[in-house]
Structures are given as C-alpha cells and as structure tokens.
C-alpha cells in the first residue's frame, strides 16, 4: 500500500490542535527541508513564540540527558506541557545515526503531556540538528509550554544553541579539567544558567568554586548575571533552583534586555534560512568549477565569486 501524501499546509491546523501524528509528520517535513513545506513552516513561525525554549548543552558525559529527563518530570509536576528535542550525532562516514536519548526518558513514555523527538545532526555544526529551529516552532504551536533542546555532547566552541533558545543552560561536570578550563572563551560564555552536575560527588565543590570565581567580575549581559547552580540528578537535588532560575531568566527577557536577544535570534534565523536556500540552489551546479579547482586550474575565490554572480546577476568584482 503506497501512502497518501498529506500536503504540509493541511497539517498546520492539526499541529495547532496538538495531534501527535500531525506534529510528528510536520517535523519530518521540516527535516526534509523540501520547498513544499516552506509555506506551512512560515505560517507556523508567525504563530509561534509562546513557549519557553531552553537549550541544554555541555561536554559529552556531563549528564545532560539525565538532567533533562529529571527536569521534564519536575516541569510536568508543576503542570507544564513539555517537549524535548534530543540531538545525537550522525556518522561522518555512513551518514546514519543511533538515537538513544529516549532510553533515559522511559518514565515519560506514556505521558500525553510530553513529546520527545530524536534528531540526528546530519552534518550540521555546533551541536545542533539541521531544521532544529523549525522543529522548535512546531512544538511551540502544538501547545508545549517548555521546549527543551538537548544538544549533542559538544566541545568548547559549539555555541549555536544560544541562537536557538531563550535560555541557555550549560552543564559542567566535576573532574573534567582545571580552573583554566573555566576561563577559556567559548561554550561557558553562552550560559544564561550554569549548572554543575553530579554534585553528589566530592570534587564538585571545586568545579562550583572555579565557575563562580570566573563569573564574579563578568559584566551582566542584557541585564542578566548567569547564576551557578549545583545539581544532582542522582539524588534529585537542585532542580527547584534550576526551575526558579529558568523562570527568572524568562522574566528578565520580557524586559529591555530581551529585545536585543530576540533581534539576535531573528538575525541568526534569517542568515541560516538564506544559507539553506542558497546551498539548495547551488547544489549540482558547481560540478565544472569543482573539477577545475581540484586540478588547481582555478582558485576557490574566483570560482566561488563566479558561482554567486551567476545567481545574483552582479558584475565581476562586485
């Protein structure tokens, strides 16, 4: 039996009603980034903006998944409907992926108020999945109050999640580096909330102290000073503080500091979308230049300028 194709625009009203099948299918359309879905995704973007989008990032093994699973339970207990976008890496060789984040979220498997979607990075950079921003909009319109984005385990400068979320939580674990790690540029700078996980371990105080020392003299960003919170998913401790900090940060964003943040997120979104459209148009057309480039008969600057010129109609050297 060949399946019937449901047009994406027909899915939009069903997404608004929160139908799990329609929400899931719309997410697949966003991932496929077909031009057929653009009108529907555009309509969803205009309807979205109600949910609190919280990015959770940190190095591999820092305890992100376990933290997210517990956080979902606490947010549900407080009455919120919660969606999780769980991102895992794609294989650089086959392009395939094993998405295992659901295993840690089994207690929410039958809860109607929880929607979990696993995504593979598919070559996207920054610990994020391609189309993650569209997926967040879909879940927002479907009526989830909080959307948690759990990034892949990242290194030190994969900071794109901060351009996708209202509130960015950076998870650090004890025992992963000395105090110099804490003053390096990169991922630690994007945190709106710092969490030190595994605070049931004796060396966690050292990590907490290092982070607090680093942040002591940092100027507030958009009128907000990132708190440093200790947390133990094992013992279920510290989650009230985390939820309180999330709520306070959201309130702060409603003020003047939030305007700059929203503009930055919108600018990032615009650039990303333009990139997607351009790359799609270039695909398959660069073959001649690639051969000349590989043979070093042409240079990448001239070849790329010519490729762009063919689309924009600009004069040479423009």
């Amino acid at each position, binding site marked *: 039996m060949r399946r019937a194709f449901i047009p994406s625009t027909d899915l939009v009203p069903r997404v608004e009603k929160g139908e799990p099948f329609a929400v899931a*299918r719309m997410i697949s359309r966003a*991932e496929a980034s077909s031009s057929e879905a653009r009108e529907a995704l555009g309509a969803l973007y205009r309807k979205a903006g109600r949910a609190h989008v919280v990015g959770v990032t940190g190095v591999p093994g820092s305890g992100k998944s376990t933290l997210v699973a517990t956080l979902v339970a606490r947010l549900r207990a407080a009455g919120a409907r919660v969606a999780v976008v769980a991102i895992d890496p794609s294989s650089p060789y086959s392009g395939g992926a094993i*998405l295992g984040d659901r295993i840690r979220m089994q207690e929410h498997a039958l809860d109607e108020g929880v929607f979990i979607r696993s995504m593979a990075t598919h070559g996207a950079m920054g610990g994020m999945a391609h189309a993650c921003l569209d997926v967040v909009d879909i879940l927002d319109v479907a009526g989830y109050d909080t959307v948690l984005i759990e990034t892949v385990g990242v290194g030190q400068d994969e900071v794109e999640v901060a351009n996708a979320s209202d509130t960015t939580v950076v998870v650090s674990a004890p025992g992963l580096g000395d105090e110099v790690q804490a003053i390096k540029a990169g991922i630690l700078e994007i945190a709106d909330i710092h969490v030190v996980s595994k605070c049931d371990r004796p060396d966690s105080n050292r990590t907490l102290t290092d982070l607090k020392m680093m942040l002591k003299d940092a100027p507030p960003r958009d009128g907000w000073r990132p708190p440093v919170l200790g947390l133990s998913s094992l013992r279920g401790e510290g989650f009230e503080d985390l939820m309180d900090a999330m709520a306070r940060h959201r309130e702060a964003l409603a003020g003047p500091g939030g305007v700059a943040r929203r503009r930055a997120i919108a600018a990032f979104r615009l650039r990303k979308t333009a990139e997607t459209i351009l790359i799609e148009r270039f695909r398959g057309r660069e073959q001649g230049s690639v051969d000349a480039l590989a043979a070093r008969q042409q240079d990448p600057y001239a070849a790329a300028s010519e490729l762009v010129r063919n689309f924009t109609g600009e004069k040479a050297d423009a």
Partner: protein
Amino acid sequence: MGQPIRVLLAKVGLDGHDRGVKVVARTLRDAGMDVVYTGLHRTPEEVVRAAVQEDVDILGVSLLSGVQLTVFPKIMRLLAEQQAEDMIVVAGGVMPDEDVEALKALGVAEVMLQDTPPAAIVERLTHLVEARGAR
C-alpha cells in the same frame, strides 16, 4: 536530496537479550539510516507512542520470548488508532513458521528470523520504504 530512512527498534516484553537488536541497529546505522533505540522491556503502548512521535518509516520489534501473537495484534491496533496505519511494521527474532504466517496476515510487512544476514535486512527494509513512498 533523499532523507535517511528512519527506523525505531524496540524490545517488547520480558526478554532481556538485546545483543541481536543492537547488532541490527549498528548495521542500519552503517547503511546510512537513523535508528531510534528505546531499550529493553517496553510495552506495545510505549513503543507505538514513541514510533508516532518519531514519525519513523519502519517500526522494528525484536522478540525472543514467544509472545509475538499477543504483542503484534496490539501494536497493529494501536497504530491504526494513532492514524499511523501506514507505518511499516517488521518483526525480528525467533519464532515458529506458522506464527510468521499469522503475523503477515495481521499486516506485519516482514518477519526476519535469527539467521537473516545483515545485508539482507538492509536491502529488504530499503525496498519496503521505497515501495511505501515518502513521509
């Protein structure tokens, strides 16, 4: 650009062996598919909810405990209730030949027993998805 085939692999019921299903997961990953694995001891309800949320092309259920004629009718009914009757359901594991026929009569697209070579699994799943059409 073709999207990777999405597969959800699940272990339903009480058997605690997931070596086989993990080998299949890796095989499918290496064939370029996105594989969601939900772990051991799931119920049909949990598996179907997860498969719907993940909007997978294929729901693969591995069973070694002999409860296939209880589990699969439930799964097929729940999928229909969730408007996901067009999802491809595949069974894997160890079972008698007459049960294979019974499962196919229920609408299970393929039953792959323990001696199925990995390459054959990839080929069969790819073919099933191509015949079914895009999400």
